């Protein structure tokens, strides 16, 4: 910067005037670098944080309450020719039809209420009974002369040729609609013209019972053909299968009824108000206004029998005012005069007393408004487990059954009773009709089935005997309900973590202690990078080896492998006791070969395991471990014994340290070293024998109390937690090892020197000085290893079998959050509930590892501070 000549020249430190100015290029570069680095840095960090924000933003809509928006309310009274029976709306919410008691079928525009078409398909003899199916437009009507007709009343769409259309239709803007040819024509966004019209197709009448008027009727569609149940004035309940056969020569269609009848009790038949056939035709329900429902077992149509009688309204003061099926026609939805809406399912408890082994049980008492106005009408969704109810006071409520929540409620302006109610085929609207008005609302409830509790707590799904945690996202059938309970997946994740930590942590920690305290620095410089490199071994390689090499290999030698877990430590320790027998000069000279000696004991241990395995199998598991595990043969003692050995070994070690060693120390004052070493060896062998004896005793006692099978041990599956735990060890050992070895090495050298200088042996130094000082570092290593185990994907995906079972059995598989995402996300439709649930799974995983890692990080920082202070 040029100096201002007016100012007296400033004296600088060196006494000379600054003569050269910083070039503008340097300054510019400096500013530019600052801006670029700051923006780039903050941007990058922001991008990383975006991951979390984006996951949350995808998940949040799962838990957003449903929104209901009024679309149209118009006066319906003018076109009301009689009592309304049924209403329906097409999937584009353009057209609706209403069916009245006098047999009139009126088609009208949804948005204005204007009548487009009115027809009387039955002429002058209106039906005396009717039934409208939830989903596919199947209908059935019964008449006073004892005949029935079934068929379809539904909406059909076809595309029109633009050449044949009048100008006013052609002038429509995309999305607009107008009446045309008895239906509604709409110009789609692809510039096509789609005509939506009512299609009525009714079969010829078939006689059920001559002369007796049909009072109630219901129809169920089986794959073989329709099943129709009728209740006539004579009190007879008919259940019939309708089969039509076409004569190939004459082209004449003959319709036949086959089935049976059942004489109801007079009171039941007289006051019956609802008759319903289950979806498979295997049950018929006859319900009265006082709530009494007779459930008939009609698996054999020829001989219906009463299965049970249930009171749907146990409260005395209330009466049953509405009854409907849920989708699938297996669960009943009841509405009563006190405004309660309940869902009743047939479940199969083990102690059922009915003839078909099923019981009708209330599984959901939906949180209906407490205003106690009678439920007048119920409507089921044709694609999900949603239910709409209308009350006498004009309140329309929308429920989701499985998640047991009220999604929305709308109060009509005029408190008239809701006469008819329907949910649109795409579940995006509710149409409610009262005596004076028609109201249409748009529902925005994309994920009605998920609430926080439905995701994390047990849920009572249709057909289940009790509330359960289930993850089952897809199935072959249409009316299948996806079950999104995350708990089985979280459980699987925890199981994978626990078993792999059980295997990996002891090994990694022991190895770290040995490396940092006992190993020669030169060897350490070679071995540590080797183990570190194992950390970058691709997990897909480990997974592949686990599933295609380890699992098939282990499956034949399970007892041997299990025995190795006991035999290896035994042999290694034995080696240590034998080493003690060497005179001091020899042992010091041989010190540098110690690790190779230890390596030598491994094959011995494995050999011992392979020898002991079959022997132990014969002794404990009747010679067939897998057969024993299925629970078919043998008693529970063997399993207990195996599980008790580690605990007993620990007890023996403590006993030895607290009791034996002081004894030896005080009583062997003038013994020679060799004699004591021999005594020590004897002590060790004695303790091993004592361990086994103790484990045997305990197992005998415990096996009286309970059998371990079905809890921690159960049927052997080839891809299981044992394999995953072993192979995941390859993934977590290097991490735990590296971090804990770093922590141990970071303990200041003066502590080590001080301890050794005071006469402590390396082992004493390690155990009493180094490990306690580095404890928090070790703990943080465990946490980081755990974080890796929680999120590991490929190994569990390939080697864990991926069945979402919830049991701690080490010989069974599981399904983790991560594997589940990898399997299902490619197939999930964007923005569907499934898609968002998988994002929730990812977020859960994110949260789990984040918590674990933060704990590790905080501990690590604390440890560092402490290490500096020392």
């Amino acid at each position: 910067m040029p100096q201002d000549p007016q100012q007296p020249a400033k004296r600088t430190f060196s006494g000379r005037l600054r003569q050269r100015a910083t070039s503008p290029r340097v300054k510019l570069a400096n500013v530019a670098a600052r801006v670029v680095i700051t923006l780039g840095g903050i941007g990058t960090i922001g991008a990383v944080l975006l991951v979390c924000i984006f996951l949350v933003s995808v998940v949040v809509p799962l838990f957003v309450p449903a929104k209901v928006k009024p679309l149209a309310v118009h006066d319906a009274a003018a076109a009301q020719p009689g009592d309304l029976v049924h209403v329906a709306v097409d999937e584009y919410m353009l057209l609706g039809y209403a069916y009245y008691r006098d047999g009139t079928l009126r088609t009208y525009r949804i948005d204005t209420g204007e009548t487009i078409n009115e027809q009387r398909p039955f002429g002058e003899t209106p039906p005396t009974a009717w039934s409208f199916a939830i989903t596919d437009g199947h209908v059935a009507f019964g008449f006073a002369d004892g005949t029935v007709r079934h068929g379809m009343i539904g909406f059909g769409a076809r595309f029109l040729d633009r050449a044949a259309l009048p100008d006013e239709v052609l002038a429509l803007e995309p999305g607009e609609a107008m009446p045309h040819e008895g239906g509604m024509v709409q110009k789609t966004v692809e510039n096509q013209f789609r005509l939506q019209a009512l299609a009525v197709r009714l079969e010829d009448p078939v006689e059920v019972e001559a002369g007796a008027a049909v009072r109630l009727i219901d129809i169920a569609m089986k794959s073989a053909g329709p099943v129709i149940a009728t209740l006539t004035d004579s009190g007879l309940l008919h259940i019939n299968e309708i089969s039509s056969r076409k004569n190939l020569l004459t082209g004449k269609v003959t319709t036949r009824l086959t089935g049976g009848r059942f004489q109801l009790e007079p009171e039941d038949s007289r006051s019956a108000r609802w008759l319903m056939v289950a979806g498979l035709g295997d049950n018929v329900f006859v319900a009265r206004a006082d709530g009494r429902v007779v459930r008939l077992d009609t698996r054999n149509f020829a001989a219906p029998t009463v299965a049970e009688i249930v009171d749907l309204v146990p409260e005395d003061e209330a009466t049953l005012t509405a009854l409907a099926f849920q989708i699938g026609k297996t669960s009943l939805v009841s509405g009563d005069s006190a405004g309660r809406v309940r869902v009743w399912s047939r479940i199969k408890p083990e102690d059922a007393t009915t003839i078909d082994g099923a019981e009708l049980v209330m599984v959901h008492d939906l949180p209906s408004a407490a205003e106690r106005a009678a439920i007048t009408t119920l409507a089921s969704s044709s694609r999900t487990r949603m239910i709409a109810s209308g009350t006498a006071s004009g309140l329309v409520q929308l429920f989701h059954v499985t998640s047991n929540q009220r999604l929305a409620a709308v109060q009509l302006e005029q408190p008239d009773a809701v006469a008819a109610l329907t949910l649109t085929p795409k579940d995006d609207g509710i149409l409610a009709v009262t005596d004076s008005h028609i109201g249409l609302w748009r529902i925005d409830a994309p994920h009605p089935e998920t609430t926080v509790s439905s995701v994390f707590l047990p849920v009572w799904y249709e057909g289940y005997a009790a509330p359960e945690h289930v993850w089952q996202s897809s199935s072959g059938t249409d009316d299948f309900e996806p079950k999104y309970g995350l708990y089985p997946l979280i459980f699987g994740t925890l199981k994978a973590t626990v078993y792999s930590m059980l295997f990996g942590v002891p090994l990694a920690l022991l190895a770290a202690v040995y490396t940092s305290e006992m190993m020669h620095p030169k060897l350490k410089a070679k071995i540590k990078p080797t183990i570190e490199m194992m950390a970058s071994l691709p997990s897909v390689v480990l997974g592949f080896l686990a599933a295609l090499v380890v699992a098939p290999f282990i499956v034949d030698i399970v007892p041997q492998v299990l025995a190795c877990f006991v035999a290896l430590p035994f042999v290694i320790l034995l080696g240590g006791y034998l080493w003690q027998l060497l005179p001091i000069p020899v042992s010091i000279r041989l010190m540098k070969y110690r690790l190779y000696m230890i390596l030598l004991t491994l094959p011995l241990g494995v050999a011992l395991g392979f020898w002991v395995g079959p022997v132990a199998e014969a002794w404990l598991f009747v010679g067939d471990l897998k057969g024993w595990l299925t629970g078919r043969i043998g008693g529970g003692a063997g399993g207990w014994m195996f599980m008790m050995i580690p605990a007993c070994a620990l007890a023996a070690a403590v006993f030895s340290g607290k009791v034996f060693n002081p004894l030896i120390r005080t009583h062997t004052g003038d013994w020679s070293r060799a004699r004591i070493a021999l005594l020590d060896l004897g002590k060790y062998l004695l303790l091993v024998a004592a361990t086994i004896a103790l484990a045997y005793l305990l197992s005998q006692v415990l096996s009286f109390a309970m059998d371990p099978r079905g809890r921690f041990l159960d049927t052997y599956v080839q891809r299981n937690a044992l394999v995953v735990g072993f192979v995941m060890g390859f993934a977590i050992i290097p991490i735990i090892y590296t971090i804990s070895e770093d922590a141990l090495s970071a303990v200041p050298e003066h502590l080590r020197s001080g301890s050794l200088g005071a006469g402590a042996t390396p082992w004493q130094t390690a155990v009493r000085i180094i490990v306690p000082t580095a404890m928090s570092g070790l703990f943080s290593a465990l946490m980081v290893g755990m974080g890796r185990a929680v999120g590991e994907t490929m190994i569990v995906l390939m080697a864990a079998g991926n069945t979402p079972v919830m049991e701690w059995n080490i010989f069974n598989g599981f399904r983790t959050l991560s594997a589940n995402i990898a399997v299902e996300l490619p197939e999930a439709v964007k923005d569907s509930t499934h898609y968002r649930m998988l994002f929730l799974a990812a977020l859960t995983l994110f949260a789990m590892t984040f918590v674990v890692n933060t704990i590790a990080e905080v501990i690590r920082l604390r440890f560092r501070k402490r290490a500096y202070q020392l």
Partner: protein
Amino acid sequence: MTSLKDPPRPSAPPAREHELKRPRRSSASAALMARGEPMVWLTGGGMAVCVAMIVALLLFVGYQGVRTFWPVPVVRIDTIDGRSVMGEVTRHSSYQPESYFVDALPDAVAAQVNARLEASDGWAQRQLVRTGNFELTGEHFTWVSDFEITADSERLPPWALVIERQSWGRFYGEPLAFVIDGEVAADQPQAVWDLFEQHHPAVRDRWAQRVALEKDRIGHINHQLEQRRLALRAIELKQGIDSQAWKDAAAEFEAFEQQQHEHFVEIREQIASLNEENDRYVMRLVTADGTEKNLPLAEVVRAYPANRVGFGEKLGIYVSRWWEFLSDDPREANSEGGVLPAIFGTVTMTLLMSLAVVPFGVLAALYLREYAKAGPMISAVRIAINNLAGVPSIVFGVFGVGFFAYVVGARIDQLLFAPKLPSPTFGTGGLLWASLTLALLTLPVVIIATEEALAAVPNSMREGSYACGASKWQTIRRIVLPRAMPGIMTGSILAMARGAGEVAPLMLIGAVKLAPELPIDGYFPYVHLERSFMHLGFHIYDLGFQSQNSAAAKPMVYTTTLLLILIIATLNLLAIWLRGRLRRRFVGSQF
């Protein structure tokens, strides 16, 4: 015994005194126990098990990977139920045969077998023979139990040929005749083999020409047609289907299509003539069970008389198999042929990822270490970044597919690739999104490594630079960055190694079983970032788990695994070597 309520406080000093008075001898027992030798052995045992696990794993993969391509003799075995099996023995195992298996044998044999089984506690030996000939037998492998083999039937047929084919996997058979133009030209094995060796190279050349024609010329025509079709669709979207412009373009398109069709027919004719020439040469073979099979020479990729080849020829076959593996496209649902597209995809993806992650990682680290004011905010960010290094990779994959493909990619499609909709261009998994996802995943690794490298540059050097009058940026550029460079490179290479081995996120975002088109080719814009790609890691998963015939694919899995481990180990060793250099340089630069 003192009561619990009355702690033995008063008596404590005497106890201490007693302790002090005790003569402190260095007894042999105390010395022995103090060494804790058994416990030291236990820790050493942990160490040994870890080392043994790694060594065993690497040796296993190495052994399986190295031996896969080595030619082995072909054996022929007759079994007592009259079958005859010819093929390569792949492994032996012992098992316990189910009783119904033995009962199904002829009575006399069953008795004998039962006696043998009883003698060996029910255990029997069996061998897995790779028999090939999938189109005839419906299986690639057969188990043959030792007790099934008729005595002394096991032999090495001198003229057993191992034939690797273009489709249906391997063929094992003995030559019967060599047929040219439907007439037998030779019927002695030696003569057949000579003719085969004489004609095979030319036939394969013609086959390669044919493939080139199909791939390049026809591919070119299809590419041009697709481009024009998209241009037409773009006009339709912009001007409407009723507009004059569209009608003109449509007519032009039709003319072009017609013209291209003529080209197409021409090429087809060339291909047909090549095929015709190739179809003249057929080798007739007989399998172990006597079935005759005519094998067109064009189908044969490689053939050798397994029991006649010497060590040199075996080595030649071994090398040529490796070369095919490294340089060819996969065949037969990836279970044969090469992995070139997977190598190519892995390398391209890793390079793209490094291009994205290194600059931004370094920027972020520079900001954190040199520019940001230290405070609780920055510590929190640092902890967060540390934590992100431990977030499971699959979570990043979920983010990648949800954000990059479905949000960003869908928007790009709407803006730039509207004619192609509804089939997505960037709106689905692909190379670019996979690279960016992995870049996010490895970003923490680079940031942490760079920060450490920057922190390791002594402040005295910065201060010296400032004292000489350098600006902050000059100091960073000339002093700090060069010193930190090895550390930064170490971090980047480690990030690459992690990225190259990561599979879980790629399964969600772009890695596929078979990508017919490489992401780089001769058509504008040459680098196709939106394409899905093959990846070595995903290839392993796919071969092992998605393949219909995982037994036949298993050898390929080992070689692919070996290749992937080698790539990653190389990257790691490079990083370790760099780290060593950094340390030396760092030590040398302190003053």
